[in-house]
């Protein structure tokens, strides 16, 4: 089966040449005019999240610094993905719930580009722990650039190589990690693009 690579970004890309190796770019930008886009919800508390989710539709991604907001977002049916950035807080319970509720956890590269020094070292440690937990619970996750502008975009090979070595350095099964990331990427592509896909486990072969 052909592997299809999906990337999540926070801006509307104008040049697709930069996205080397990706088959589908999903911009989480509510102003974007593309056919396939994500609906971005930013919230600082649970009441704000609930208000914004009432208007949300389609492929909804939540971005929040608050642990409680992320936990609440995972429990909501409308939310499809918890987006990643340098200030995101996500815990053991949220990752476990994300597996039950089929919510994707994004693990992005660009957050490391935006910080330096000790912050970057801490972020690397946190990401290693996150990857360990994602593998342990087999929670759906995706490796993306998470770019906020064109300068943060990286080729797909570089992205996967980075997470391969990051996980290897942390004593995590890197081969399994990359394999699961590719499977999840395929699943997301089918959900968003494939017209013959009905839900996980049901697809149309012929009419």
């Amino acid at each position, binding site marked *: 089966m052909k592997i299809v690579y999906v990337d999540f970004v926070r801006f509307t890309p104008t040049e697709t040449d930069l996205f080397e190796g990706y088959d589908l770019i999903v911009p989480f930008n509510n102003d974007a005019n593309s056919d396939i886009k994500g609906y971005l919800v930013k919230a600082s508390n649970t009441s704000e999240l609930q208000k914004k989710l009432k208007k949300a539709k389609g*492929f909804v991604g939540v971005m929040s610094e608050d642990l409680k907001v992320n936990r609440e977002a995972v429990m909501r*049916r*409308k939310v*499809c993905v918890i987006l990643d950035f340098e200030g995101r807080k996500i815990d053991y319970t949220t990752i476990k719930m994300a597996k039950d*509720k*089929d*919510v994707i956890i994004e693990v992005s590269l660009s957050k490391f580009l935006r910080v330096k020094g000790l912050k970057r070292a801490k972020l690397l440690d946190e990401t290693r722990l996150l990857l360990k937990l994602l593998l342990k619970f087999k929670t759906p996750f995706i490796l993306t650039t998470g770019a906020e502008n064109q300068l943060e975009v990286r080729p797909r090979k570089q992205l996967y190589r980075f997470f391969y070595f990051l996980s290897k350095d942390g004593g995590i099964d890197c081969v399994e990690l990359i394999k699961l990331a590719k499977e999840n990427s395929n699943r997301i592509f089918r*959900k*968003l693009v494939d017209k013959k*896909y*009905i*839900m*996980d*486990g*049901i*697809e*149309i*072969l*012929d*009419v």
Partner: protein
Amino acid sequence: MLKLKIKLGSPAMVITDEWIGMEVEVVESSNPCEIGIKGVVVDETMRTLRIKTDRGVKVVEKKGRAFKVKYGRWLLKVRGDLIAFRPEDRIKKGIMLIKKSKLAKIDV
């Protein structure tokens, strides 16, 4: 509570529907001898399907298999894990699975 409008006759409803009398074919299985078993479902239990084929009645487990089934005007491929419940429970559990699934196409 979120209300979900599932269109009756939508392909997703195959997991809530009665499978006895449906024509099925096993397309994926961990047991290679089961692949290609084709016939009409004559009986169903919580974990198995009894399929009447040219060579007699075959009992096939639901979990870990995928079935090709004719449902309405569609030819569908359905994973056995989604129907691995007692037939009388499948109506409720099937609707729960559909509601739980993200971005399911329920209005086809």
